[in-house]
């Protein structure tokens, strides 16, 4: 096994990086892969609560880096999925406790043990961001269809290119079909045109994400959730499969145009 390291980043905070990380990790584990997700947000850990694993933390990423434990000891196994693990961030330290070379070393040690390493990047473009992109094979930039998130995504895409880690791929989160239809929200097509990178997923704005986060149960665990399906589709695309883009809207129109635009097979 030689794991693929996927880093989820965005620049702007609050666009859904952690939710995306949790759901992609769940979706890949549901597909039968061995997955470790790493919370790269030292000092502001959250991936543990989003996954519902906060009560089981003993060791964290900084303990690994500072040799207080073995990597295995810091890997919390999920109760719902056999092959899903979390390495939590330290809560009482800051970004400087970990360096880009530490992250590369930790990931290299894991590479022969697992199929996917999914890293949740902190907001911002400083040390924490650099730590999480250093070991990445694939970088996914999460944005929302609004001006500040798109602008920050553009900056991040440029930085990823400058680090020769590109091209990044794009996830557009919190798309509201009603607003889009009315002309009061940028469409996924608009965002792709502005940012000029490959789209790998479109996630609808869904109140169930709030509810599932309250419960620590990522929506990808719910077989009936359309939003969960959107995350599962991204997981399939990460595996190299061609999956048509979902229609977010029952009458569906703009996303069927999206499917045509990107020729991801299907309709």
């Amino acid at each position, binding site marked *: 096994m030689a794991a693929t390291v996927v880093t989820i980043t965005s620049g702007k905070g609050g666009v859904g990086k952690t939710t995306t990380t949790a759901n992609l990790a769940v979706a890949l584990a549901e597909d039968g892969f061995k997955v470790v997700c790493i919370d790269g947000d030292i000092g502001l850990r959250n991936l543990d609560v989003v996954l519902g694993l906060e009560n089981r933390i003993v060791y964290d990423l900084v303990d690994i880096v500072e040799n207080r434990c073995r990597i295995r000891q810091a890997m919390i196994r999920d109760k719902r999925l056999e092959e899903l693990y979390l390495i939590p961030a330290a809560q009482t330290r800051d970004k400087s406790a970990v360096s880009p070379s530490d992250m590369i070393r930790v990931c290299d040690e894991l590479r022969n043990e697992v199929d996917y390493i999914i890293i949740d990047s902190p907001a911002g473009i400083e040390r924490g961001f650099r730590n999480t992109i250093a070991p990445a094979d694939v970088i996914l930039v999460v944005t929302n269809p*609004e*001006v500040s998130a*798109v*602008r920050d995504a*553009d*900056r991040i*895409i*440029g930085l990823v*290119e400058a680090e020769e880690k590109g091209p990044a791929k794009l996830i557009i989160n919190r798309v509201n079909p009603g607003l*889009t239809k*009315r*002309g*009061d*929200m*940028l*469409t996924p097509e*608009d965002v792709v045109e*502005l940012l*000029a*990178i490959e789209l790998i997923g479109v996630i609808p704005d869904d109140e169930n994400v709030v509810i599932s986060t309250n419960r620590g149960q990522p929506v990808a665990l719910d077989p009936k959730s359309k939003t969960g399906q959107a995350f599962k589709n991204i997981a399939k695309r990460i595996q190299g499969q061609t999956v048509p883009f979902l229609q977010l809207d029952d009458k569906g129109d703009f996303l069927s145009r999206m499917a045509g635009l990107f020729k991801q097979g299907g309709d």
Partner: protein
Amino acid sequence: MAAWGKSNRQSADEAKERLKLVLIHDRTDLSQDELSTMKNELLAVISRHVEIDPELVKISMSHDGREQKLTADIPLKTSHRRKIG
């Protein structure tokens, strides 16, 4: 350019236009003011060698994927075209 006059203009279109300009600036580190200064300097240099009509000159930033391009369309005044042969 943003058409501020239109009241029924949809906000997503405005967002897109504004973002286009902001992203050009962010990617090139060149503001609208700096762009027009550069334009004037370019025109001054070109005018030293050939006659041009500054009104017809178009210098703009565009992008091809994530590549930024400076495009200049500078028509020369026809009366000064040299005869061939």
